[in-house]
Each structure stands twice: as C-alpha cells, then as structure tokens.
C-alpha cells in the first residue's frame, strides 16, 4: 500500500519535471526528447492506474510514432540550414 | 423510414471510396451532398440509437425540430456553395465529404463525447481547408487554438462525467437540474471556452482574422455559413438544453457575448478590405447569437443565425471571388465593381441590407423579434448594445456599398478602367447561387409567417415554448 504511494509520488514528480523541461528547453531537439521521456512516464502512470490498453497505445503512438515524426521534421530544418 | 445516421454514413463511405476513385472526387462530393438533401426530406423526427444499446450506455442521435431545421439549412447551404464554386473543389473533394459528415454528426449527436469526436473531425477539415490560401502560419495558429479549445472542452466534459457518471446529453441535463450549480462553474466555463474558440467569441478568436481574411470563394462562404452556423447551433444545444448555467456565470457570459458584438462591429468599422469587414461582422454576429442563447431566447437566436449565415454565404462568395480574380479585396481599389456585375451586386446589397435589418428584408423580422424577446425578459441594457451594434453595422455596410456601386474617381487614364481597376467575371453558377440565396432573404422578409410555420411542428425548440412575444409582420413592414 505504502510502497505504491511512493512509486506514484515519484512518477508524478518526474512527470511534472519532464513536462516542464520539455516546454522550457532552448533547443528543439532536447524539447522533443523530453517530450518523449515524459510520454514514457505517462505510460508508467497509466500502468499504475491499471490501464493496460492505454499504456500500450501511448507507448506505440505517443512516445514512438510522434517522436519519429517530430525528428523527421527536424531533419528537414537541419538540412536546409546546412546548405 | 430513413435513419438520420445515413446523413453521416453516406458522406463518410463516399469519402473513403473517393481515395480509390480519385478522378471523381468533386462528382462524389456533389453526389453525397445531393443525396443528403434528398434524405433529409424523408426523415422522421425522433431518437435514433446507434449500435443497439439504449442511452446512456450507447450513443444516440437526436432528431428534434431544432436538429431538423439546422441540418436542413446547413446541408442546403453546403450544397449550394459547392455548386457555386465547383471549379475550386478539385483535390478537396474528400476533405469536404468528411467535413459534411462531421457537421451533420455535430448537429445530430446526443452524446457529449461523440460531439467532441465530431468537433475534432470538423475542425481538422477546417484546418486543411484554411491552408488552401497558402498562408500556413494562420492555419497553424488556428490548429493550435482549435486543439487547445477542444482539449479544454474534453477537460470540462470529463469533470462532468466523473460527477454524473454519464456522457449522454439528456442524462446529464436531467442530473444537472438537481445539482448545485455554483459548484459546476469550472466544468461549465471550460466547455464554454472550448466551444467559444470555434464559435469565434472574444478573446478566443485570434485565428479568425487570418483564416477568414484570406479564404477564397469556396472556403470563405463555407466557413462563414456552414461551419459558423453549425458551431452556433451546437452552442445553443449545449448551453440551452444540456448545461444549466448559474446566474452569475450566465451574466458574465452574456457580457462576453455583448462585448464580442461591440468589439467585432467596431473593428469592422475600421477596416477597408471587404473580407475583413465581413469577418469582423461575423464575429459580432456570433457574439450576439451567443448572448441570445444564454438569455434563453432560442427562437430569436435561431432566426438570427439564419439571417447571418445566408447573408454571409452570399457576401463571402462575392468577396472571395473578387479577391480570387484580382488578388486584392481593398474596397478602394474595387470601386464600382458592381456596375459591371449588377446581379451579383444586387445580391450583395440585399444580403447587406438583411444583415443590417432593414424593413422588407428577412433581417428586419429577426431583429424585431430578438429585441422583443429581450424586452420580454426585462433586460434593458442588451437592446441598447444591439441597437448600437446595428447602427455601426449600417454605417460600414452602406459605406462599403456606396464604394462598390459608384465609379472610381475621375482622372484615370483609360475609360475602360473607369469603373474599376480590375475586371471581375463572375460565372453563371455563382450568379445563380447568390441570386437564389438573396431571393430567399427577400421572400422570407416579405412572408415571415412562412418561416415561422416551417420552423417547428411542435411549437417548441429545445426547452423553449413558442414564445408569445413573437409576431409575424405580413408584408414585411
């Protein structure tokens, strides 16, 4: 009972911290990585709250595909900047 | 017996099919909207369950008088606008089919989460349509605000669910009647904000300027009539039938509506571009309608929505067409444009007069009724605001009409360009369309009893009985 609470507090704290870092970081790439990490933590919180379906979906879509699409977009910007 | 779910399913099916039949997108779009128009006349009012599970467990569609007139008007305008600007559809056929399904879904659904889903469908199609103007930063701005708005709507909705344990509109409104309304302040306000973004209410309407101000002759009238009308109808349903608003919040929200009205009209006064004038006028009208709905005046609000969306369909079509042809819609540069296109000019004039509320036009009927409605509530500041708005409206519309009807200043080199710097050719389809729509405004103005008799069979819209203050002005005077 108590151990679950501690895990919850840690997850919640990290979630807030990573969300804040994602919004506040200067570089785009770090923002995206932090977003992906906070999405992973959200997966953890979904698992704690007994929502396996949501956890799987968030893991595949939220921290997988969305990050990939973000990174592809960044790749274009980098490229144009190089030339 | 026709099931209204067909109004959503058929456009969707055609949209999916149009990916394979990719050369017939615009034809499929016309087919879909024409079939929908025919189906509407075969509909029977009632409650339709989807999936066979009775509400509140399953999702249901509600086809009452309110939903019926709204889908009739929205589908009709959708069809007319697509016929008018058929040449502009091209690749957008699939998107427009999906948007038709989304608009019908929003108007028909009886479930608040289902409304969220259709709201997202409709707004995503709107983002895509707005990007036709190639001003991507405005589309992006719209996307961000729209997503935030629907997110806040969902937030409010979830709070309601966790308290009432249901997502069904009828169920929630039943439970809301016994709840402590002062505690419901936050969910109600969140839902208001969510819908206000799409309904263009101040201060959540930052996207409107860029999106409406650059829309072409297809997208502009669609946004200003079909989309705007749908959003306002949905606003009415949610705030009159589903949610009860505590009296303090109600006054606050009515003031927000009134401020939107005045701010919109004042901004329109200071603009010179035709589409900017029209868009600020649209914002003002939305504020007015929202204030009416929150005051509980459903009949006048519905009449005013009709007035607004029919007039704006005509005016945005003509304004958008001018901008498409000439690349500008500065009223000064288009001086005398109507001298060469008299029918289009007359339709634009009729629409403007109706929007101002001059006698003989439909707008007079709706304005008189809404003023009488407000007086019947013993509210005396709102009529002052509305009259002030009407005066400002009259000033800028008549100024605009004078510019567009009178030839430009003398001293131009070529006599051919004496009327206007640009030549504008309005196609036959558009002329027929705008004449048709403005004829409706005149006929409804002369025979308002007809509108009223067709408005409702049961004499009741949402929760409001057919009000005693309403009267018909036969002959329009």
């Amino acid at each position, binding site marked *: 009972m108590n151990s679950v609470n501690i895990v919850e507090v840690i997850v919640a704290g990290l979630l807030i911290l990573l969300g804040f870092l994602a919004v506040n970081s200067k570089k785009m790439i770090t923002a995206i990585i932090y977003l992906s990490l906070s999405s992973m933590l959200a997966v953890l919180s979904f698992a704690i709250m007994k929502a396996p379906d949501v956890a799987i979906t968030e893991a595949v879509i939220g921290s997988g595909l969305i990050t990939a699409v973000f990174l592809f977009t960044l790749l274009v910007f980098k490229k144009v900047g190089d030339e | 017996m026709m099931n209204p779910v067909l109004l959503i399913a058929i456009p969707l099916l055609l949209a999916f099919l149009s990916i394979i039949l990719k050369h017939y997108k615009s034809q499929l779009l016309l087919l879909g909207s024409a079939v929908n128009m025919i189906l509407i006349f075969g509909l029977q009012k009632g409650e339709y369950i989807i999936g066979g599970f009775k509400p509140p467990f399953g999702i249901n569609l509600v086809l009452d008088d309110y939903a019926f007139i709204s889908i009739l008007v929205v589908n009709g305008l959708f069809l007319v606008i697509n016929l008018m600007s058929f040449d502009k559809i091209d690749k957008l056929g699939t998107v427009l089919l999906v948007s038709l399904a989304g608009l019908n879904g929003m108007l028909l659904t009886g479930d608040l989460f289902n409304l969220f889903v259709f709201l997202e469908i409709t707004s995503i199609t709107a983002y895509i349509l707005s990007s036709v103007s190639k001003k991507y930063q405005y589309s992006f701005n719209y996307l961000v605000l729209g997503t935030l708005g629907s997110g806040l709507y969902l937030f409010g909705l979830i709070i309601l669910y966790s308290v009432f344990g249901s997502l069904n509109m009828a169920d929630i409104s039943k439970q809301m009647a016994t709840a402590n309304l002062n505690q419901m302040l*936050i969910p109600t306000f969140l839902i208001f904000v969510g819908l206000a973004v799409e309904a263009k209410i101040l201060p959540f309407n930052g996207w409107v300027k860029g999106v409406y101000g650059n829309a072409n002759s297809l997208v502009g009238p669609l946004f200003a009539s079909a989309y705007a009308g749908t959003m306002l109808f949905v606003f009415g349903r949610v705030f009159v039938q589903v949610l009860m608003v505590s009296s303090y919040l109600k006054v606050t929200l009515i003031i927000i509506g009134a401020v939107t009205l005045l701010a919109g009209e004042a901004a329109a006064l200071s603009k010179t571009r035709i589409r900017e004038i029209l868009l600020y006028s649209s914002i003002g009208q939305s504020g007015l309608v929202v204030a009416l709905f929150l005051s509980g005046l459903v009949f006048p609000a519905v009449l005013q929505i009709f007035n607004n969306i029919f007039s704006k369909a005509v005016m945005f079509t003509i304004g958008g067409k001018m901008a498409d042809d000439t690349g500008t819609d500065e009223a000064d540069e288009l001086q005398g444009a109507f001298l060469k296109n008299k029918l289009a000019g007359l339709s634009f004039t009729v629409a403007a007069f109706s929007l101002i509320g001059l006698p003989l036009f439909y707008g007079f009927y709706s304005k008189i009724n809404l003023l009488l409605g407000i007086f019947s509530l013993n509210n005396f500041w709102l009529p002052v605001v509305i009259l002030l708005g009407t005066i400002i409206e009259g000033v800028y519309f008549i100024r605009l009409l004078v510019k567009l009807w009178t030839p430009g200043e003398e001293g131009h080199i070529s006599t051919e360009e004496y009327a206007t710097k640009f030549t504008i050719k309005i196609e036959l389809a558009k002329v027929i369309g705008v004449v048709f729509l403005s004829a409706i405004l005149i006929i409804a103005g002369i025979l308002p009893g007809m509108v009223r008799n067709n408005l409702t069979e049961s004499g009741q819209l949402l929760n409001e009985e057919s009000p005693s203050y309403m009267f018909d002005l036969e002959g329009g005077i």
Partner: protein
Amino acid sequence: MKKIVAIALLVFIGALLFTGIYAIDGFPKYGEAKVADRVSEGYIMKNVTEANTDVVYGVSTNLETGSANYVTSIVVNYRSFDTLGEVTVLFVSSLGISLLLGGFSGKLRNRCKANFILRMGSKVVFPLIIMTGVYIFIHGHLSPGGGFPGGSMIASAILLLYLSDEKFRVNIENFKKTESTAGSLYVIIGLLGLVISNYFLSNFINTGTVGALLSAGIIPIIYVLVGLKVGSELTGVITDFLKEEVE
C-alpha cells in the same frame, strides 16, 4: 516579463481549478471512483438492458458483447460510433498531410549511413514486429491492445525499413487502396447492422463464449479493419514526412 505574467496567470488559474474541481460534491477523490454509480457498471456486467448477472470468463455465452476486454467492448461495441469518428480523424489528417507534403518527390536522406547492425537487425526484427502488430489487433478483444496500437506497430516496422535501407520505397498506391477498402468496409458493416437489426453498427453476429478467440461478434472483424486502416494511413504519413522538396 511576459513569462512572469504568464506564470502568475497560470498559478491563479491553477488555484481556481484545484479549489473548484475538488469542491464539487460527488467529484471522486483519487483512487475512489464510484464505478457502480456510472454507466460503466452496465458495461462491466455486459448487460445494459436487463437485470445483472455475473459474467464468468470462459463460461458465459451469448452476452450483449462477448469481449473479455472491457475497454475493447466499449470502443468497438457500445461506443463504436466514436471509433468510426476516430478512424476518420486519422484519415482526414493523413489526407491533409499528403495534400501539404505529398507533392514532393525527393527522399530525405539519412545524415548518417545505416550500419551493419541496423541493416541486418531490421531484417530480423521486421517480421517479428509485423507479427506482434497483427497479433495485437486480432486478439484485441481478449488482451490489451487492439486496432490502433496494432496498426501503429505495422507502420513502425515499415519506418524501420525506411531507416535501414536508403533505397527502400513503399508502393503508396497499394496502401491507399487498403486504407480506402478497410474504411469503406467499416461503414458497410455499420450499414449491414442497420439493415439486419435496425441499428447502425449493431453487433449482428453471435457473440460466442467470453474468452474464446472466435467470439465477440463483429469486434475482431472491426479491429482487423481498423488495424489495417491505421497501419496503412500511418505508413502514408511517414512516407509523406520522409519526402523532400527537390529543386
């Protein structure tokens, strides 16, 4: 300065939210949701029309909805109309993306070349990911998962191929055909329900025993369609994002 104003504003809004939400009578404290008072109770009992009887895994047959996974039964049965809408959202946004980015013909080159491990590894992993994806949407009514994560997994397998092989291109036309067919079939199944039992998207196939693979009526069929549709749509999105303007 702007940031300070924003923070002050949000602290104010936050305080309002926290006090406002938790002041509502009946708003459950965290971890104390009263499921019995909500519509969900009907979903759990798998009976929203008659008196409740206990549903037992592997024993109960011919229920309203035969899915062992309650979330699936809600997503595909009770609120199937939402799912149709959800599929449409993805459909229309992938359409918008291909309108915006699909016109380009070049392929975005990877800045660093794929090394040996990525090239060989992806060949090994690719069939495994596809299999997991297919497993997830076929078993959507029994285990966590379903059409959306399953379809996304298929798309991510194809993403892996894109990353490992410079020359790899999917034939987007075939994916579009799959997408269109799957979407149309979803609507047609709904219309069949309307014809057969008078309700759009109703479950007109026998629901079988809870827990069996061949059970739950139309749920597996719809989840397979959703999985295929989502998979092909997201593949289209990825392909569009990997395109680049060629001057």
